[in-house]
């Protein structure tokens, strides 16, 4: 396991890179301040954070509400260390009525993300509690997962930590992966997915996933990454990290989500696919997902309030049956089918699926609609 004896140097790349929109590889996020819930000061996580952030202002608070800043941007610069109340494990909200579901489960060991993607649903979802939080009682979460896996030995679970946060962007501070990877490596009926836009992979390189952990990267056309994913690293840097984890024994997942219908999207996404498969081994790809940009009214309002906007709001978005706006269906299908064709040209055995789409779209794209649980079973089975 990777250990860091030396304290991290405060870099605040967050502020610097809001202008350049890029993050140099190797520079990881650091908070402006740390707030620790009283009673959790001696938790392993709090002690680790204090050791690694000796120069960051830290305070212990009795009142967690007071730790919440008033704006979303400030929330991304403040780290709150607290005990999680309630259930850790949830069904992925993509399993909305009317959508084909891939039976994905999400487990939340943190909340909010240091990156500032313009399309991110957290701007809406966490608008009232935007602080970046890490939870101290990881063991409780793992016990909860263990209970579910034991209760359903016949099922194949896919469980991800990347719903409310980036799975790895805080790992240089928390070492969470050092608890998760060994835990899942010993579970026969589950696969953990760590989903990221970062290259915080140092810990992973020293762990043995035993084919039970997939490290996934959100990927996009280079112009979209530059315009819409502030604070993240460029595609090439993500691929460098992905190639390293492949070499270390992990399978890699890829998420083209959100696909954005921008000018010359064909060239942008074709180039991205070419770049990806120049660097990665297709036999070590666990799955590739495709998902169209999805927009709630509140997210749209949040995007409109941003000082800089790319092509997000000018593509032809129309409301669907679930109330979310997406690019109109005929164009979505065209984009999915084109992406599918390119990906199958690379390797027609790569497991592919689409996210948050109704059966009719699956049928047009794949020629068939999977039965309930079939997608999850197929994706997990493919990991061998």
């Amino acid at each position: 396991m990777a250990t860091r004896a030396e304290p991290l140097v405060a870099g605040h790349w967050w502020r610097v890179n809001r202008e350049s929109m890029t993050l140099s590889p190797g520079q990881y996020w650091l908070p402006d301040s740390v707030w620790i819930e009283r009673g959790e000061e001696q938790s392993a996580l709090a002690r680790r954070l204090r050791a690694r952030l000796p120069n960051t202002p830290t305070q212990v608070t009795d009142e967690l509400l007071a730790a919440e800043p008033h704006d979303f941007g400030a929330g991304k610069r403040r780290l709150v260390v607290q005990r999680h109340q309630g259930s850790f494990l949830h069904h992925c909200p993509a399993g909305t009525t009317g959508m084909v579901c891939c039976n994905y489960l999400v487990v939340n060991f943190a909340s909010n993300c240091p990156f500032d993607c313009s399309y991110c649903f957290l701007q809406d979802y966490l608008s009232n509690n935007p602080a970046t939080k890490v939870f101290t009682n990881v063991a409780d979460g793992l016990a909860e997962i263990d209970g579910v896996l034991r209760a359903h030995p016949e099922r194949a679970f896919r469980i991800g930590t990347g719903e409310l946060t980036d799975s790895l962007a805080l790992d240089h501070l928390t070492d969470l992966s050092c608890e998760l990877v060994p835990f899942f490596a010993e579970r026969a009926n589950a696969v953990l997915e760590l989903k990221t836009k970062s290259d915080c992979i140092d810990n992973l390189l020293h762990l043995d996933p035993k084919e039970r952990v997939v490290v996934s990267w959100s990927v996009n056309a280079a112009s979209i990454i530059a315009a819409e994913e502030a604070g993240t690293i460029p595609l090439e840097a993500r691929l460098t990290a992905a190639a390293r984890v492949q070499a270390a024994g992990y399978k890699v997942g890829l998420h083209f989500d959100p696909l954005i219908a921008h000018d010359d999207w064909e060239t942008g996404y074709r180039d991205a696919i070419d770049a990806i498969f120049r660097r990665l081994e297709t036999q070590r790809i666990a799955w590739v997902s495709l998902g169209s940009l999805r927009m709630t009214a509140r997210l749209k309002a949040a995007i409109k309030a941003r000082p800089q906007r790319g092509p997000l709001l000018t593509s032809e978005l129309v409301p669907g049956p679930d109330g979310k706006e997406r690019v109109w269906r005929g164009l979505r299908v065209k984009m999915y089918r084109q992406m599918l064709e390119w990906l199958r040209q690379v390797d027609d055995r790569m497991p592919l699926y689409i996210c948050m789409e109704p059966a009719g779209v699956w049928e047009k794209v794949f020629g068939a609609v999977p039965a309930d649980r079939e997608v999850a079973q197929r994706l997990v089975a493919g990991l061998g």
Partner: protein
Amino acid sequence: MNTVDVQAAIRRYAGARMYGAVTTERWLRLPSPDGEALLQLATELRLGENQLRDLWDWAEEIGERDQLTLSRVLSAQPIAAVRTGHLGRNDKLKVIKAVLRRLRFPQLVAVEDRLADLVRTLQLPRNVRISLPEQLEGDQLRIEITADSVAAWRAAASALLAASDTPAGAELFALLGEAP
């Protein structure tokens, strides 16, 4: 009007129409010429808050895409033509909304237009009605027959059967399935 007058007029209009604070504040934050252009439109068409917001959102998104100010979008030729025409208020509102939608969703509207052409090409009898899915968010046509006799029923069924074999019928479903 100067900026102060525009802001006062916006407050008066929004207050009289009982607009919510969020919309009013958003309106007041616009550059003065844009706020005034929106006020003129709202006054001409006696727009309620939701009506104004619908037109405003589309106009703003068109402006963002085409690098135009809101006032330029609202005074563009197809919209100006409707505004200065002789339609009544409700018809004007309907037509302006349609014009803005056409500008905001050019690809979608082009496909809708082509589908409407194809339906016309089928030359179905008047008692057969074909409806497209709203916003083309679906791949199914709705086909309705109204009949007051067996003969009318049979004529409609025959015409539909014949239409199903035409290239236009095939193109209809192809276009509903995927953008060209």
